[in-house]
């Protein structure tokens, strides 16, 4: 009966990130924070980053908010990926992830770089959920774009 495609997105890894997020907390000494909203479903997310401006390194990343399992797990996976990385690397991962969600084919290296977030690839075939998966990443884009214009 089940067509499988919807339920298969709820992998063990995704369910675990949703139920036990590592990065879901308010970052007191954040240098940047940005709100992302998903108007169609009312999801709200605040992304916090502490960026070391001298070395352009994202020292710490976290998020708060509410949303579906996909948006929450995606945010948790993203925070884990970008924490400790350079701003340029975060931008590269952002490009990879958004490209993947929009249906671009990924190389094996790219898949490795996106780690668990690459599991969200099948979302590209579920238009109603694309915005959920993208929410945290779009919010990251907001912070990084704003930071560049400020510079």
């Amino acid at each position, binding site marked *: *009966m089940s067509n499988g495609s919807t*339920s298969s997105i*709820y992998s063990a890894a995704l369910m675990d990130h949703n139920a036990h997020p590592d990065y879901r907390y308010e970052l007191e000494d954040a240098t940047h924070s940005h709100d992302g909203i998903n108007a169609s479903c009312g999801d709200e997310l605040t992304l916090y980053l502490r960026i070391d401006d001298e070395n352009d390194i994202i020292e710490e990343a976290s998020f708060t908010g509410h949303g579906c399992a996909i948006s*929450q797990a995606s945010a948790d996976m993203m925070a884990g990926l970008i924490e400790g990385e350079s701003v340029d690397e975060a931008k590269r991962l952002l490009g990879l992830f958004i490209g993947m969600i929009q249906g671009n084919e990924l190389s094996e290296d790219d898949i490795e770089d996106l780690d668990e977030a690459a599991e969200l690839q099948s979302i590209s075939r579920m238009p109603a959920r694309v915005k959920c998966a993208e929410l945290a990443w779009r919010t990251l884009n907001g912070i990084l774009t704003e930071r560049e214009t400020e510079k």
Partner: protein
Amino acid sequence: MSSIDITSNPYKKDFPLLASMPDLAFLDSAATAQRPACVIEALDHFYKTMNANPLRGLYELSIEVTEAIDSTRKSIARFIGAGEENARDIIFNRNASEALNIVAQAFAPTVLEEGDEVCITIMEHHSNLIPWQQACKKAGAKLVYLYCDKNGFISDEEMQAKIGPKTKIVSAAHVSNVLGVTNPIARMAQLAHENGAYMVVDGAQSVPHMPVDVTELGCDFFAFSGHKVFGPFGVGVLWGKHELLESMPPFLTGGEMIDYVSEQDAVWSPPPEKFEAGTQDAAGIYATGVAIDYAEKVGLAAMEQRERELMRYLAERMDALKFIEVVGPADPDARSGAYSFNVTGVHPHDVSGILSGENIAIRAGHHCAQPLLLFLGMHTCCRASVAFYNDASDIDKLVEGLELVGRMFNV
């Protein structure tokens, strides 16, 4: 016990989409209804045999279309209790939102002044909320809310406290698209009129589910959408008291709504044409008339009874699921069409996404009623809505789907 058998379904065969998708449990009729074959065929019939611009009928086809539109006006006037003789108080537009915007943007400025109040309920759909926010901002008026209890009921005390001498307009959903409750419109109208105010009703969720009589309701304006009452997309209806339609200015201006135009000025046509600028969706209006005929043939009272049984069965099955949090009245008889709920600890979009994989269509989100959900202490919820063409098997499928959600999320 009732004599209505919800395990049998004599109606499904009338709806080509439902008949061709026997595995689909369509539980989102509050968003848009399915259409019977006669309505779909009416659109085809119109374009194949009747098509012409109904511009006041200068040749045979055009005269026929104009007559078809006038005939639909009569059907609708009768259908909502306004009386066939008042067919010219039926205005066609695109949807209930546009109909309510006509009232908020063309009528409201004629009665609203700084310091006045517009009173709406906390359970309004955004389409009967944002137009009033805007109208109040423009006039310097205050938007006042009638709050309900957790079962969705607005008390008489609340109405008496909020509807007063400063109130110029009261506008309310006849039936809530989230809670499914029927608001005490007649009482609101009485209080509004005692205070010299006008009563506006958003009937989008009532017209598909119960016999409606605007005279009994005592309202001044009544709006609904054709697509929720088995008609095609793109046709909305506004009924208004004739003297108000007569005295208020038009909403949109342009072709077809004038009697005479000079270089600097224009004389408006009388209603309804005054409010129907531009070419109307004549085919859609014709098919809406066919939809109303179909609804009357099934019978709104029969639909209401069948839906009550469906709602009772739905509530009974849902009550047995430990992880369901009901949003709105505990009594299923207090609901028309809509049954909202949450699965404990699971976001509504995950619920609807998983159900979608099982061929079950429900709505999830804020249901265009964000202030209501915040008032109820939540951001989003799920909504299953029924129409008379549903049956017990749709509800059984929903419950099985929710059991799957429960297993996946360990709730």
